[in-house]
């Protein structure tokens, strides 16, 4: 189940005999940054806000009659670069004595598959103002699917040391920053498609080629 905040909630069952165990401490650890993992008791997910207030550990001491269950919430955030593997550690306690259980599980998680956006340079002109090389680049894009994170268009200009964005016109919320030979355009997740035009000034050379590439995150 994926909710509006991107939580993927799974009901997990512990297939162990817990005879003589008073409480069970369960901890899940992600091998990769960018994943937020929480563990909850089965009914807790109905409590508003509890997912965001929880962490990757839960202690269960009311086993009931049926199989032991807990809920796993996984949220992939904007710093995730790919999938992750969760490792579960279980510690049982009886009469105040804790013992790690031999049973340790793993679970592989993958981020949503994101269709590659279409990003095209529709016009690129070069000119000059006195001795200063200038240029204008128009880009149109169409995001392939819904997004929760800002995504990035990288415009690389070969043959240029430094450049500055003089003016950016087009879709609302789109911003551009520069690095040597590169303009990085950030597109808010709410924009499914759009176009922008950049007026640029160069120093340290005149561009010899231009390329554009998109990078999407979950």
């Amino acid at each position: 189940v994926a909710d509006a905040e991107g939580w993927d909630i799974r009901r997990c069952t512990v297939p162990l005999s817990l005879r003589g165990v008073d409480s069970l401490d369960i901890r899940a650890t992600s091998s990769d940054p960018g994943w937020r993992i929480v563990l909850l008791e089965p009914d807790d997910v109905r409590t508003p806000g509890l997912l965001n207030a929880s962490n990757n550990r839960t202690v269960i001491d009311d086993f009931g009659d049926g199989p032991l269950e807990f809920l796993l919430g996984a949220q992939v955030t904007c710093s995730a670069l790919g999938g992750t593997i969760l490792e579960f550690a279980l510690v049982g306690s009886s009469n105040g004595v804790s013992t790690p259980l031999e049973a340790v599980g793993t679970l592989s998680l993958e981020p949503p598959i994101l269709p590659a956006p279409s990003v095209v340079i529709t016009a690129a002109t070069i000119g000059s103002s006195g001795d200063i090389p200038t240029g204008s680049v128009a880009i149109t894009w169409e995001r392939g699917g819904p997004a929760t994170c800002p995504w990035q268009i990288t415009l690389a200009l070969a043959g240029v040391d430094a450049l500055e964005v003089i003016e950016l016109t087009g879709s609302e919320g789109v911003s551009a920053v520069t690095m040597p030979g590169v303009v990085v355009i950030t597109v808010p997740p709410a924009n499914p498609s759009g176009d922008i035009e950049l007026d640029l000034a160069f120093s340290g050379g005149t561009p010899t080629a231009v390329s554009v590439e998109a990078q999407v995150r979950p």
Partner: protein
Amino acid sequence: VIRLFAMMVLLATSLLPLVGLAQSNEPLPRLELETASGDTTLVAAVEPGDTIRDQVRLGSDRATRVTLRAVNLTSPPNGGIVPVLSGPLTAPATWLQLETGEVELTPGSDSTRSIQVAVPNSAAPGQYLAAVTIDSRPPVVAGGQLPQTASATLVIAITVAGTQNPAFELADPALEQPPTGPTLVIPISNTGNLTVAPAGDLTIVPASGSPITLPLAFGPIIPGVTTTLEVPLNDVPAGEAKVQLTLSDVATGARGETTATIDLPASNGEGPGVDVEDATPSSAYAPDGEPVDVTIRNAHLTAEGVPVEFVTVSADLVNIGEPVGPVSLVMDISRDGAPTESVTLVDFASVPRASLSLNTTYVPDGGFSSGLWTFRLRLVDADGLVVAQTGTFAKLDLT
């Protein structure tokens, strides 16, 4: 200097038509660079000393020759992940082993290369990022045209096992004035060993009026990278304001915050501001009927010593019009709202069409006594007419 150039370009845009349409008639190839399993990121969790072995697949929808290479990655301002286009390879890009160079691609016939990532025994715990890229060769185009090339990137993300330490630090914000408008620039350093994506709120509390809260979300910042967060303030009313930035990384809980007092120029926004009434646009100065265009930018004051012994004042004088002079740069000083003195920091026989950086020191007679000290800058001509001026660009609170 490049900002001066930028303003010149802005003014000249309507006068100098751009030349040379960059489009080639030949369609760009659509390039693919993936792992053997079809991912555009190779993610692996390893122990120090491990070696990862995989295949990369290169594809194109039309016959083309591409250059395959390993590159460093960094984070640009406002976060993100971009290749570094120049300079020597550094770790972890130096851990990559693959046959680089030119590759001929034909449609329907993928090319594969073996790739190894040899993680050193000495590798510290944490996340490491590098990339492999392919670029097509620029087509031959007519003179004056800017050819397009195609590229594709495969990110290599390695997490070395051990203690995870997500952390970042925010330094003091500064107000800058690029051609696109006033911008709050906040240096940020990823001081931990995991990538973070900071998000949070920028709260702006003007001297008068209601606080403004801007929700912000930035892209990933790679461990070890120092960059900047740049927040446009075009819609924020002019005048003095306190800003507070509080950010956190959702995945790890790492947090950072910083505060500052800024003074937005009188031309900003439409709301009230302490300097709106007496700020004089530089274009109003036209002694010979020809307006000049000189601005004072990046004014900054630093207190030296504890208790304060003197202050260091720096500013840029940017002239994008004709030379003007003689003129003097004067600093007006007030204490607890009452003017104390105006001192000439520097005299110019002429300010050329250029950007000049100034740096000087100031200490009042008798030193800095207790009180709230405020500082403004004016550029005045020989008749005392204001050529350009700032609002209150710094406060020194010694109460």
